[in-house]
């Protein structure tokens, strides 16, 4: 397509240049008529017909039914609520800001939105599909090679649209099944003293009002589920890495990192911050 485009561009502009600069003199009228009909009608009809047939033959791909697994993604401002519904499941596995898919299988991704329109897009795996409040759209993806890809929101959705991304991880089916099983499990208890202090802070600072950590009394559903946040590739919907340092920076600078985000900035002592970060980082 690119080669064709360059060729056509050269053809038209070359002719223009030739006519106006190289040979400005008059040509025969007869040629003029040929150029008008040939260039204006015959050429585009032929090129476009071929292009349309070829192009539209690919149209059905992203709408083919999936092989069983359904991932339901809800766009929030500005993060992704993710539910995995394996075939026959009656309750989903809840997570956020990361999509994992088995390679070699077509997975249906059901999309909706909380408040405003977003658009779901993993450039390396397929096209995009908009996410509407009050409506469900669908795109099915068939990853062919394992790997981690970047996904992001493509429809302008407010102040921090730029920071609404996620990691998309394509895995071998066996690995995927293992991962899904561990993702379905409750959170691991804190394993160090710092993490234990962090877990208490998590409760006392009221984090659980918005965030759920399954297996604890924190059951908030306003923000992302943090049950296995330590095992994710990114923090804050693609904003940072999940390290103790980044977690501390995030908790203390949310409004700088993500303008107008709902999560308030927490003004904690440095050691409190590192405890809290240690707890979250340990939630593998």
């Amino acid at each position, binding site marked *: 397509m690119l080669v064709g*485009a360059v060729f*056509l*561009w050269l053809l*038209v*502009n070359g002719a*223009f*240049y030739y*006519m*106006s*600069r190289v040979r*400005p*003199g*008059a*040509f*025969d009228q007869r*040629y*003029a*008529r040929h*150029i*008008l009909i040939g*260039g*204006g*009608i015959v050429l*585009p*009809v032929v090129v*476009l017909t071929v*292009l*349309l047939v070829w*192009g*539209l033959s690919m*149209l*059905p791909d992203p*709408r083919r039914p999936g092989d069983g697994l359904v991932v339901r993604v809800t766009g929030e401002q500005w993060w992704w609520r993710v539910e995995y519904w394996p075939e026959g499941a009656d309750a989903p596995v809840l997570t956020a800001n990361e999509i994992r898919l088995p390679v070699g299988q077509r997975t249906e991704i059901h999309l909706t939105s909380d408040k*405003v*329109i977003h*658009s779901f897009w993993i*450039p390396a795996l*397929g*096209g*995009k*599909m*908009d996410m*509407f*409040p*009050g*409506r469900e*759209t669908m795109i099915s993806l068939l990853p062919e090679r394992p790997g981690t890809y*970047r996904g*992001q*929101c*493509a*429809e*302008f*959705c*407010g*102040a921090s*649209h*730029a920071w609404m991304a996620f990691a998309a991880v394509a895995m071998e089916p066996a690995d995927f099944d293992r991962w899904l099983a561990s993702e379905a499990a409750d959170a691991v208890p804190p394993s160090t003293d710092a993490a234990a202090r962090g877990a208490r802070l998590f409760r006392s600072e009221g984090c659980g009002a918005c965030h759920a950590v399954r297996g604890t009394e924190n059951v908030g559903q306003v923000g992302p589920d943090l049950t296995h946040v330590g095992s994710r590739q990114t923090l804050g919907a693609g904003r940072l890495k999940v390290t103790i340092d980044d977690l501390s920076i995030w908790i203390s600078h949310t409004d700088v990192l993500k*303008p*107008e985000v709902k999560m308030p900035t927490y003004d904690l002592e440095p050691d409190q911050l590192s405890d809290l970060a240690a707890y979250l980082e340990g939630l593998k």
Partner: protein
Amino acid sequence: MTRPSGLPQPEGPYPPTDEMLAEPVPRDVQEAQASRLRAAWETPKGWRYITAVNNTEVGKWYCLTALVFMLLAGVMALIIRLQLAVPENDLVSADRFNQLFTMHGSAMMFLFAVPMFEAVSILLLPGMLGARDMPFPRLSAFGYWCFLIGGVFVIGSIFFDAAPRAGWFMYPPLATKDEGPGSDIWLLGLSFIEVASIAAAVELIVGTLKCRPPGMRVNIMPLYAWYVLVVGGMILFAFPPLIAGDFLFELERSFDWPFFDPTRGGDPMLWQHLFWIFGHPEVYIIFLPSIAIAAMVIPTVARRPIFGYSWIVLSAVGTGFLSFGLWVHHMFTTGLPSISLGFFSAASEAVVIPTGIQIFAFLATLMAGRVKMTLPMLWISGALAIFTMGGLTGVMLALAPFDFQAHDTYFIVAHLHYTLFGGMVFPVIAGVYYFFPFIQKKLMSDRLGKWAFWLTFSGFNLCFLPMHLTGLWGMPRRVYTYPGGLGWDWLNLISTVGAFVMAAGFATFVWDLIRPKHRQAQIPRNPWDGGTLEWTHDVPEEAWGVRSIPHVTTRYPLWDQPDMLTRLDAGRYYLPDAQEGKRETLVTSVIDAEPVQVQRVTGPTWITLWAAAFTGGAFIFPTFSWYTPAIISGALAICCIIWWLWTATAQVPEADSKDAGLGLRLPTYAAGPASVGWWAIWITMLGDATAFASLVFGFFFYWTASPDFPPDGAAHAVPGLIALAALAFAVNWALTVGARQLNRAGRVTPARICLIAAPAVAAAGAAALVGAVIDLEPASHVYPAILWALAIWIAVHSGAGVIMQLYCLAGSLFGKLTPRYDADIWNVSLFWHFVTISALVACAVLGLMPEAL
């Protein structure tokens, strides 16, 4: 049957013979005529200059204002580029960035691209048609002042950190739920400007149809006029859906009526449809006038008539039609059924064909002519290079599967700038260089022009060519910053550098345009040796446009009618004089351009300025929820407009007919289809009906798209009152038309009785319609909300119609409207034809649909 009004018909020889034209005009007669004409057309001096309404003045202001808005929007783009030069930059905040890109797009589209077409056309069209002025000069001035006030208001919001920030297509729910006045400024400010745009379009269409010089049949009018006709028609059908959308949107913002809120039955997709039904034709509304400029420049450069005139006209019309069938390609990723995607893919590809024909016709013209390269032509060549590139990426994007990837990325940003620069900015600049001698008898600098071209051209490509890649590598548009390390860094840096090179090019161009040219030698009258009538103008010395209105028999009269210029200057042709000291232009028939009337056109006035200021108040105050000042302002605007119409339009002339030159006597007054006013109402109402149809479309959209429309157990409009309203509107219509017929038949008293009864009945109808929905809760669900919206629409139109009926009644009582001079009531009954149909459709939807549902 309507009895003829008894006004005289054109009398005398037509077309003029060669002997008549060869007869010289005595010198003293020439001078006396010229001085009277000069006095009638004199441009007001000093601070009264702003009361001018002549197309050359208004056109000039319009162009310069649009240029200033464009430069402001360009500076916003530079800030955007600076912010994106490096990853994670914090030059501007996210909120400020979002305001900037929203305003950049909105201003470029609504304050530059469309108004620029209208500005250039107001400036040039009368010249090309050998007319003295537009048919409604005060309407042009009113439109200009509306544009200025609205534009300053909208663009000024950015300096108060209060600008809209949801992107130039304002998708709900993001834009409806946005806090602060930003969205309201966008909706009301731009609606105000859209109304002015439609007014200008109406005037341009009527000007093209009715103000051509005698003999200029439609098949020999300049291509520019054809494009004006096509684009004017497109504006008429494209803007109303957006205005209807704005109306619903603002009702949701102000009163929480849930048109786009899915939790109460609304649907954000309706806005997307209405917006893009406007938005896609908009692209061609911007693009076609530029092709029109090219169509004027190219024959001059090739020194031969355009090749394939009728091909070009048909293609332009075809492009206009097709452009209304493409809008869904902006919505390929919204999950619409595959069948729609396939259809709109194919339609989007099909539009290439008429576009291609136009470009190849230009190529063929250059081929068959002997090309003399000029500066305007250089810019046209640049336009072609850029536009074909944008066209080719457009062909790719029209394929839905490709669009799934490229949609909403920097690939789109690149594509749209290639089409708009190639299809608008470059041709317009070419037009500025080409038509500059039309404003001042000077040429712009060749050297600076080349510098400007190469800087702009290379800067443009440096800025936008890499963006194709940035987009394909996954960078979405409208991000205020981006993380480093994704391969986008260096591409963005190049783009930023390119943007500044381009800015240097624009600066050079603007300097060349505004630099003082006192010491530069004056140039001859027709510096490019063009063949069309605008080059007969002797500006700026004479404000009268043409000394006398020529009889035109060829497409390039200055090439093919060798004696024309001297005869024209001698006042040998039509309307060489202003005996009564009034401004006049010639009205001709639509197809054959046979002279039918001498039209009095209006002169300098303050009233248009006041009318625009108060109209502005009516639109601007509601953005701050100041409803009382808004209503007062609106009422004052109506008073101004009534005063303006009463004192300056459809005046009873001192004589029924006058000598128009060459032995031809023409009537000085026309009513009904013979008058330009009637045509203007007809065309305006076509646009109005389109807006109404968009609301009805909304009703059916909800019905088909949503399972709970109307919701179970919903209250409906009261059927009895609906029936009453329908009856009242029908009776009102009969009374209005009856008044017109009785008046013309000389039965003035019964006509007046009809004109007293009709407003009462119309008001009763509107009241019944509103009464039928008054118990419904519009904020509870979209079903009662859309019923309310339809009822309000009809009620407001009825209000306007009642004022018009009373205006006619007053006219009848005070001698402005008589059986012989009855243009006003013809226009009013035409208005009511349309409103009655709308009202009956509304009654059917409100009253009958609940049965069908």
